[in-house]
């Protein structure tokens, strides 16, 4: 049976730490392994930071909806925001073998999300971005 919880936050960076605490409570309640909850926490932190930092320009307060779910096979995170369209899967991959002198400073957050999660799916739903990140329980 799938367990699901949902909440919304404002597009303010200090809200992200509260989301991590909320995720930890969910992971504790469902006895998710420590390594898995770390990966979920990091992927969610990276995506929320990206959405809040770059998704809305200067225009006012917006809500970002987050849904956590898990069953016997997977844990998943869905994030929905009304920011400008942005598909992280279109972002070019990071060349991690390049010398640090030549590495671009940006793009690491999306790189980490793709490395940490077993699947990442994006869709534009009306005026909303919806990102679904899934991690298999091993």
């Amino acid at each position, binding site marked *: 049976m799938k367990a699901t919880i949902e909440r919304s936050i404002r597009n303010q*960076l*200090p809200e*992200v*730490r509260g989301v*991590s605490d909320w995720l930890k409570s969910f992971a504790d309640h469902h006895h998710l392994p420590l390594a898995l909850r*770390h990966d979920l*926490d*990091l992927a969610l*932190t*990276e995506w929320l*930071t990206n959405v809040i930092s770059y998704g809305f320009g200067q225009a006012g307060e917006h809500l970002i909806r987050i849904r956590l779910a898990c069953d016997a096979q997977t844990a998943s995170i869905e994030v929905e925001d009304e920011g400008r369209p942005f598909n992280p899967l279109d972002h070019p991959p*990071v*060349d*991690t*073998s*390049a*010398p*640090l*002198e030549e*590495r671009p*400073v*940006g793009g*690491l*957050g999306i*790189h*980490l999300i793709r*490395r*940490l999660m077993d699947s990442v799916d994006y869709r534009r739903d009306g005026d909303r971005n919806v990102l679904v990140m899934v991690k298999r329980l091993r």
Partner: protein
Amino acid sequence: MPINKMPSGDGTELVVAGRLDGAAANELEIEVLAVMRSGAKNIYVNLAEASFLCSAALRVLLQYWRQMKNSGRALYVTKPSAEADAVLRMSGFRDQMVEGAQPR
């Protein structure tokens, strides 16, 4: 996130504990910059007790790794925790930035 600063041989060690998220990355940047401006030959960022390392912190490490190198000095990450080590490895930073790292 506590950051303790202490002399270490030919440089200064910054011992970082806990969660190195976006807000903590800003604190780390302030500390690294202060040590760099003090003229330290080497900066050692000890991540043995860092339980979480995000891309904002990676950007700080990369930025000041470059600045130190360009001025004939060095910044090293030392003793990364398992969590920090995994992120450094995934990012391609580990072998070039972690003191004594062996490629794997």
